């Protein structure tokens, strides 16, 4: 799955097709108390026939490293689906889907869901950002979707050299802005910040899926909060989010 990225297929029958943007809270180990807490991973894909949920993740620290060594057939301890996902857009809207690195999974599921719902493929554009060419394999499942796609790498080793927000800006500047368009994005904080800026600049509706350290994932520890824009208030990323309207949160 590209440099340090892994695909985890979990046998898990869900009552309904998962909502894009929802996440699973997975305990990296069943042995001992260290690491202690569950980790959040977006649902990447769901296979209704076989009842398997896919998660696409990067080895970041201890928990994800342990997950990457879990043997096939291992029984995982998880909670979910949790959180509030992306609002499904009206069929008439032009969709600009932006995923950076391991922010791609929920955006992929959104694209797939929209297509399943009969959204016109021509109205969906998928923009992907990666560090370098090797990471791009992460987007292989996206590549199979019958929609327009573009990609960027930080070092220019494949696609546009630069940030995926450059690709978005080109689209917006090229006319795909305003009320008839909706931007959906997930990725590193820096990327979300510039997309938030672009959405404002081009007055285009925009939803962002945020990351945050999530001890409980249940809305109870108040650890995962993000500041509400313009209000002296914090919102729980695990409960009110992880998807927020771009102008609702202060990044």
């Amino acid at each position, binding site marked *: 799955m590209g440099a340090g990225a892994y695909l985890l297929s979990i046998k898990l029958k869900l009552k309904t097709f998962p909502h894009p943007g929802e996440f699973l809270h997975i305990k990296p180990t069943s042995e001992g*108390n260290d690491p*202690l807490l569950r980790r959040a991973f977006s649902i990447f894909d769901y296979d209704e026939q076989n009842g398997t949920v896919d998660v696409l993740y990067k080895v970041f620290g201890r928990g994800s490293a342990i997950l990457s060594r879990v043997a096939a057939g291992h029984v995982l301890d998880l909670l979910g689906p949790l959180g509030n996902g992306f609002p499904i857009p009206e069929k008439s809207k032009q969709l600009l889907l932006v995923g950076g690195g391991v922010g791609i999974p929920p955006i992929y599921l959104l694209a797939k869901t929209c297509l399943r719902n009969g959204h016109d493929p021509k109205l969906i554009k998928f923009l992907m950002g990666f560090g370098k060419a090797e990471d791009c394999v992460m987007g292989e499942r996206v590549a199979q979707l019958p929609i327009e796609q573009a990609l960027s790498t930080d070092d220019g080793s494949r696609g546009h050299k630069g940030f995926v927000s450059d690709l978005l800006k080109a689209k917006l500047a090229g006319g795909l802005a305003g009320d008839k368009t909706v931007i959906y994005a997930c990725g590193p904080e820096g990327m979300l910040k510039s997309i938030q800026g672009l959405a404002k600049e081009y007055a285009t509706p925009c939803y962002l899926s945020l990351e945050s350290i999530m001890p409980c994932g249940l809305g109870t520890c108040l650890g995962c909060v993000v500041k509400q824009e313009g209000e002296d208030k914090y919102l729980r990323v695990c409960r009110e989010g992880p998807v927020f309207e771009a102008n609702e949160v202060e990044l």
Partner: protein
Amino acid sequence: MSSPNLKVNIGGVEFANPVMTASGTFGYGEEFNEYIDLSRLGGIVTKSITRHERKGHRPPRTAETASGMLNAIGLANVGVDAYVRDKLQFLRGLGTKIVVNVAGFDIDEFIYVVDKLNGHEEIDMVELNISCPNVKGDGMEFSSKPEIAYEVVSKVRKICDFPLMPKLSPNVADIKPIAKACEEAGADALALINTLYGMAIDPYTWKIKLTNVTGGLSGPAIKPVAIQAVWKVYNTVKIPIVGIGGIMDYRDVVEFMLAGAKAVQFGTANFIQPDCTITAIDGLTEYLQQRNIADVNDLIGKAVKI
């Protein structure tokens, strides 16, 4: 064997079993409604409430550590008025005992908040979080000095309609005189421990992991410290003790009761297994049955020196 008795009486309140949830780790109960049958809990201790609403600290507010976690939530809460108005109603119907945890930065605040709670029958007990910095004094925690602990507890005791349970900090050289002072001030029970001071720094980014710099350490890492505190206090006071700190399952409940606790609270464990409390109640029942112990109270303080 017939079902063992799990009931424990703390300060005149009869809890259906010794398993409660710890303040700040269970919200106001609502979030857990979809995971467990709340009526089965011995009690719910709600998040610390203060005079005014508090937004809490800027994130990041938590960091994981070895077998533990740090938190600096900053006593985020809705404030006592909203608590009484919006939260009590949900709690009232649950069929479990409701313990309201009260925090304050000076004695007036404790008194103000408790006074607002007085008269509300849905409340069974007040837990006094005296592990906050005392802004009027030397900035130390109320529970770091026996005199200060005595003062706040005795003043609140005078005006409080409910049984009163101060919650002690482990960040002291000797917890015994603090416990004794609370007992003498009229406390009906003692809850211990609150979190240990801790801090963490990322060796790659050099950043301190919490915006608030230091935070409270909880989880299995601190269980030995908590067991030791319960044992010491059990051998010092006569009032019941509610043990807290790193409890994950029924074996930890037994360990705390053997050390001298009459009941326990699950904190961090709720984040990891939302049904940990229910599993522990079941496990405790089976444990007693297998050993033909008819009454859970028979465990209290029965640890044996070797």
